């Protein structure tokens, strides 16, 4: 029982990192990325092949490249980095058509294609079997399952905290405001000189980096990397979880992911099969679909809406503007006399 709880928490922390990343892309920047798991998979893969070292089983069972034996923190960082670069490449691909439906179908298609390539390519990816000799990090080789899980949980929480800090800093900044404006109405944002692509690329890439980090943690925890875990459906489910939880609010994203991605999956694992083995998986998916449609229909801002987040933090500076800014203000603004206003215009 204890293991169940700790396992739930560890996977929950990892999934929350993904949630925050996707929230940054979709919730804050309004970019529809239907293949988030691709970046998780990329991060996981990079973490694996940079830390696995020489193969321990004959090549007929498992083949992979690099075969480096770097320390796991390096593998972790590389995972995030490569995922970020991959995200950058994707964005550059669609940069001239950052329309939501275009993005949606291109991202989905990229996900499918990559899966197609990965499962067919033995030398690089070991095909559909995936990689399974991934070493434990820290003292995992000798520690008990619970100990290892707690270690992974601790590391994940640290990374999660960092990701939440990033999401929060962005949300409370002018950058976050520009993202929200672009999300609400691109034409208006452009009409005030905001750079549509320049602004959103950054958020997208950071979201991918988070996905990569989550992937690395996942692979360190599960010590296996299997393409089946990164199917297109998983990306859809993650997206659904974010939308239900509250797309504009990173806590909502965490909640949605915890409940719908993780909890439902894990609960299914621990209960005996009810009749047909398909039933649970199908039931879960139908449940998510129905809730998704219901939420979009009746509570579109999600369970935890964006407005519960504080728009502005304390900007830091005291009462008045600093020296050079004061003269900038005086020089540029027209002399508006507050006396002109005739009460509230309430027509």
């Amino acid at each position, binding site marked *: 029982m204890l293991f169940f709880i700790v396992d739930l928490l560890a996977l929950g922390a990892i999934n929350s990192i993904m949630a925050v990343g996707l929230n940054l892309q979709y919730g804050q920047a309004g970019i529809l990325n239907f293949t988030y798991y691709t970046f998780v998979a990329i991060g996981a893969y990079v973490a694996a092949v940079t830390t696995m070292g020489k193969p321990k089983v004959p090549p007929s069972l498992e083949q992979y490249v690099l075969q480096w034996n770097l320390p796991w923190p390096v593998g972790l960082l590389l995972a995030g980095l490569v995922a970020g670069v991959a995200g950058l490449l994707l964005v550059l691909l669609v940069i001239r058509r950052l329309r939501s439906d275009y993005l949606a179908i291109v991202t989905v298609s990229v996900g499918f294609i990559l899966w197609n390539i990965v499962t067919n390519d033995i030398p690089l990816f070991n095909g559909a079997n995936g990689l399974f000799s991934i070493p434990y990090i820290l003292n995992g080789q000798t520690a008990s399952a619970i100990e290892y899980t707690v270690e992974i949980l601790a590391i994940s929480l640290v990374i999660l905290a960092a990701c939440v800090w990033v999401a929060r800093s962005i949300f409370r900044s002018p950058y976050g405001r520009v993202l929200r*404006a672009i999300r*609400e109405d691109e034409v208006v944002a452009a009409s005030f000189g905001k750079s549509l692509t320049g*602004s959103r690329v950054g*958020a997208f890439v950071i979201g991918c980096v988070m996905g990569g980090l989550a992937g690395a943690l996942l692979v360190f925890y599960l010590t296996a990397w299997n393409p089946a875990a990164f199917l297109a459906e998983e990306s859809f489910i993650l997206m659904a979880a974010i939308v239900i939880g509250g797309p504009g609010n990173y806590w909502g994203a965490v909640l949605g992911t915890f409940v719908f991605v993780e909890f439902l999956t894990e609960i299914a694992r621990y209960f005996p099969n009810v009749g047909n083995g398909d039933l649970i998986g199908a039931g879960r998916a139908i449940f998510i679909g129905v809730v998704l449609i219901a939420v979009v229909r009746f509570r579109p801002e999600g369970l935890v809406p964006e407005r519960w987040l504080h728009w502005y933090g304390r*900007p830091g500076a005291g009462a008045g503007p600093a020296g050079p800014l004061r003269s900038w203000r005086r020089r540029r603004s027209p002399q508006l006399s507050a006396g002109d*206003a005739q009460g*509230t215009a309430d027509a």
Partner: protein
Amino acid sequence: MLELADIEFAYGGSKAVAGCSFTVADGLATGLIGPNGAGKSTLIEVIAGGLAPDCGRVVFNGVEIQGLGRAAVARAGIIRTFQTTRELAHLPVLENVVVAAPDQLGESLFASLFLRRRWAAQEAVLRERAEELLDWVGLSKLRSEPAGSLSGGQRRLLEIARALMAQPKLLLLDEPSAGVYPAVRQLIAERIRAIVGQGITVLVIAHNMAFLGEVADDVVVMAEGRVLARGALEEVRRDQLVVAAYLGGGQMRGTS
């Protein structure tokens, strides 16, 4: 300040703007009027960079800006309002205004994460200015309301405040008083005069002659994609061509 030369634009097969040329003088309010379908809104879209003209030039302070795109035109100093108000409905009114300010230090990813001290001061200044503007249009009490909950007239005022926040050199007002009560229309007219009084050049599209009379020094009349007449409102109203255009295709409304 703004010079349009032989602008043409066709939607598919039909020519919305067919050879339009005029200039907008510095520091004045110029009105743009014409019956429905005259091409006014299309022309404004071309000026604002939303559409690239099939031919012709838009010259702003000596620089050709046609086809550069909305963002570039906005950064050059031309700011517009929209015929159907486009407020950012889910964001608070104050945020709607603050976002419009140009050259914000905190607007990059890097700055948002690591340079908080640099932009925090500017942020305070901008918020103060936004509050002033909201106060000036009378929307102060609504600063935290989502912009989508405002009434039509309030949204028009919000768009004006937002446009001013962007420190425009040229302000394009697309039907700024359409669909509002006379009292608000009056307020808007007064505000526009005040804006011009501060030295900001204004180009106003309007249908309502009386409104235009209060706001514009000079009027350009368009019909069927061309400029028909130019001059003070009184002269233009009596111009034969103008009368024909209105009586032929629509109604010339003299009063509100």
